[in-house]
């Protein structure tokens, strides 16, 4: 067994103005030739730092504080700057995450390849050219001869990543560091690229370090894996052992948080404890604020719903609702021993309103016109959605799946009124839902439909305190007016989404992604919606945080009988959340099915392909 790369006790530090930050702490790992070694961890684990340290391109002012890196027995840390640069490309190569940005836009593919080849071997231009063409063929690029002199922007994302791989391979390196090589790609392309990496690894006998946050990818192609957390190695070993029978608590928790494709779990269990960044603030509370109070308040407000309690059935207007809340319920909830203390109420009304549709969409079409059509060309519309028909029942969770560009987000935007449909009708709560530009500002649907967005870093206004952010819908919809009342509600809703009440005094940037997403959920919830649209609510989050947010959404859905349109590219997540699934492709709805039936046997060929290409842990866990 010849060890290609041997890292011993590597520590990397970054001096910052708040003291030194240890990015890597005593990390040891080794890679053999012809082996793919996975490096997995959540954000901040130091995965990419390992790659940068090996290739000697640590971002300044980071430095290697301790440890050794040996490549085929040669100590890399003793090389001088020029010798190290010689090494890059010729013995160690790198594959970057985003093929859109990792190629020089002004040089043709051939120029970049030939330059790299000739940089490291003393051959003439024509020989280098032949090598480059052969290599591109090897990476599965089509029409190599014709496309050889094309510029990067003329290739699709998957094809570009093949060019990137060719560039990394063109000098026959011993070691390749692949940093999230498929994260920016759709699952179908991801599958092909991973297969290519595996194939090249075997054929050329190179060692590969595959850095990724995606445990599915790790389980799919790596031989061995190292799990990192906060710059330390948690567990290391053969992939099958580490992921199948994790020894460490963290790895176990991580594995439990990965949504499974093979069966629906009621909740994610045994997940990683939330970061305790804000403990100590727990004591700070507002009088009378509690999760129970929030829950009761929210339930009392679903005025348009045919709840069994009679007073609210007819008077569905906001005014009657407000008096109701401020006069009776606030007082009563303070006295009552919180009948909601058990937290989970089940779906109020039960089967009774499962039969009535909350949203119906008929023949929906959306066309985007490019803003400035050329001088001579007619305005060409891009059909983002074509003839979409579906209906959603009250209290149902409808999953929407599809690859990028399938129109998932457009669907959400049409419903909330950010985008106007070109044709088609939407019916919400048995009334026609006008398109966005014609929907009055006071339209009840503007309160009843709320949305949780994908990116928690941009969905909260950084210049507002959390209190202002959550209070805004309360005031805007006139759900409460008294300042003390509003504060009580804000604090209570924060409790409900499992945040300390103290959080309301802070600004969004003081929270992590997962915490921000909880605040975003709180903002949506406080409007007392009946219908929630979640557009990729967890795709920007780490898997353990994702599990927490999904659990939260499940709880809220069950407690308040919310109808949720759940959009995700991740089939496994949808499987965990949805009652029914619709599949979109190029703006067309190609399948509607119950979740269980869908995952057992999808009806459409495309759905089957999608399902097949999603990396799965099922096999691994079974063994």
């Amino acid at each position, binding site marked *: 067994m010849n060890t290609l790369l041997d890292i011993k006790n590597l520590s990397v530090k970054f001096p910052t*103005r708040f003291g030194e930050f240890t990015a890597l702490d005593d990390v040891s790992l080794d890679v053999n030739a012809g082996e793919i070694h996975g490096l997995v961890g959540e954000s901040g684990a130091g995965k990419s730092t390992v790659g940068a340290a090996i290739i000697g391109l640590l971002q300044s002012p980071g430095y290697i504080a301790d440890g050794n890196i040996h490549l085929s027995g040669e100590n890399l840390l003793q090389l001088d700057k020029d010798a190290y640069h010689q090494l890059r490309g010729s013995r160690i190569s790198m594959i970057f995450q985003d093929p859109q940005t990792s190629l020089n836009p002004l040089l043709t593919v051939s120029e970049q390849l030939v330059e790299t080849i000739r940089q490291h071997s003393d051959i003439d231009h024509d020989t280098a050219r032949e090598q480059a063409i052969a290599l591109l063929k090897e990476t599965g690029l089509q029409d190599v001869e014709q496309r050889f002199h094309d510029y990067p922007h003329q290739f699709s994302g998957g094809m570009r990543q093949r060019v990137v791989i060719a560039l990394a391979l063109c000098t026959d390196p011993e070691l390749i560091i692949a940093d999230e090589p498929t994260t920016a790609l759709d699952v179908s392309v991801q599958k092909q690229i991973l297969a290519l990496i595996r194939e090249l690894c075997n054929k050329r006998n190179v060692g590969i370090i595959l850095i990724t946050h995606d445990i599915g990818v790790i389980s799919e192609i790596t031989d061995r894996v190292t799990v990192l957390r906060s710059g330390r190695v948690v567990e290391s070993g053969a992939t099958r052992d580490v992921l199948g029978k994790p020894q460490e608590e963290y790895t176990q928790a991580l594995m439990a948080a990965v949504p499974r494709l093979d069966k629906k779990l009621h909740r994610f269990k045994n997940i990683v404890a939330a970061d305790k960044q804000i403990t100590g603030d727990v004591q700070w509370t507002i009088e009378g604020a509690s999760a129970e109070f929030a829950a009761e308040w929210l339930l009392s407000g679903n005025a348009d719903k045919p709840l069994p309690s009679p007073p609210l059935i007819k008077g569905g207007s906001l005014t009657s609702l407000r008096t109701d809340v401020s006069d009776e319920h606030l007082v009563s909830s303070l006295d009552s021993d919180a009948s909601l203390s058990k937290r989970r109420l089940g779906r109020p009304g039960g089967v009774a309103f499962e039969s009535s549709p909350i949203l119906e969409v008929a023949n929906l079409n959306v066309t985007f016109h490019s803003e400035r059509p050329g001088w001579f060309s007619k305005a060409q519309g891009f059909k983002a959605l074509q003839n979409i028909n579906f209906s959603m029942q009250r209290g149902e969770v409808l999953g929407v799946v599809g690859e990028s560009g399938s129109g998932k987000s457009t669907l959400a935007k049409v419903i*909330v009124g*950010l985008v106007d449909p070109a044709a088609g009708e939407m019916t919400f709560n048995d009334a026609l839902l006008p398109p966005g530009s014609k929907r009055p500002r006071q339209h009840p649907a503007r309160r009843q439909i709320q*949305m949780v967005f994908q*990116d928690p870093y*941009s969905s909260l*206004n950084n*210049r507002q305190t959390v209190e202002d952010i959550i209070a805004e819908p309360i005031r*805007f919809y006139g759900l409460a007016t008294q300042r003390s009342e509003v504060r009580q509600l804000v604090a209570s809703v924060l409790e409900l989404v499992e945040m300390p009440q103290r959080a309301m005094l802070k600004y969004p940037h003081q929270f992590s992604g997962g915490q921000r997403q909880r605040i975003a959920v709180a*903002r949506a919830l406080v409007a007392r919606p009946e219908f929630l649209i979640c557009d990729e609510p967890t795709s920007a989050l780490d898997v353990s945080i994702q599990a927490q947010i999904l659990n939260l959404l499940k709880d809220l859905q069950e407690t308040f009988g919310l109808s949720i349109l759940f959009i995700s590219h991740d089939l496994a997540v949808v499987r965990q959340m949805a009652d029914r699934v619709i599949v979109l492709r190029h703006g067309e709805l190609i399948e509607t099915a119950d979740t269980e039936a869908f995952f057992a046997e999808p009806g459409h060929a495309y759905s089957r392909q999608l399902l097949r290409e999603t990396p799965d842990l099922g096999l691994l866990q079974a063994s």
Partner: protein
Amino acid sequence: MTTLTERFANLRRITRENELVYLFLHNRIAQIAAFVALLCIGGAMLSPWIAPTDPYDIAALDIMDSMLPPMWSAEGDPRFLIGTDDQGRDLFSAILYGTRLSLFVGLLSITFASVLGVSVGLMAGYFGGRFDAIMMRIADVQLSLPAILTALLIDGVARGILPRESHDDLMIVVLTVAIGLSLWVNFARTARASTFVEKNKEYVQASQIMGMHPLRIMLFHILPNIMGPIMVILTVDLAVAILLEATLSFLGVGVPPNQPSLGTLIRIGTEYMFSGEWWIVLFPSGMLITMVIAVNILGDFLRDALNPRLR
């Protein structure tokens, strides 16, 4: 309930987390620049009280005092710290008053430019469409004309339209409008670009979904978020405005000669430079340069501090 100490602790934490304050407290150059800028502004504002003489008061001038060198040179007069100009004005007082005028015109025109530019930029960025297209086309055309040319043109046109007798009285207003109109484009473009970015962020979409009024979204949600880049432009363009005023006055199409600004003083000084009266041109230039450099350093500091890419 929050105790006072708790609030104080919270405040201190926020201060530490506030990048800008932190960076400022650790940037000696920016501190010096801020100090100098404050000194200039303070001196200018207080000029009626701290200046030894009133340079606008023609009666107090004595032609016998003209062209006196600074007091430390052989022929200097202890009454005039850094000498006098061609009409016997105390140069030190004239510089203080001139700085006040320059700053006044600069600040006024920059306020004018920023209010106009930011409103246009916000609306263009938020609504897009035809308004955006028209405004940005105008901006493009104007941007290809350098600010000084625009200001000269507006200045020239105003001189043509207004009756000659009122030139002197209205000149400061004309100058302010001319400089303001020549600088609004920067604000409009910056505000538009930032608005465009913010508009597509999800927090704005959340407000739109709620049915919030666009004006409210622009003022309460977008504006606070684009203040960073606007502050940068505000500082940098304040320097530009001061320079523009000085240049126009230097060219003789700026403020009227009976109320000299720094530019006017320098122009007067140039005429006597060849005959060896160097002080008339040197001190006003020095003042102008010091002030502009201080403002520019602050602008650079803000730009670097607010630019996440450079961290």
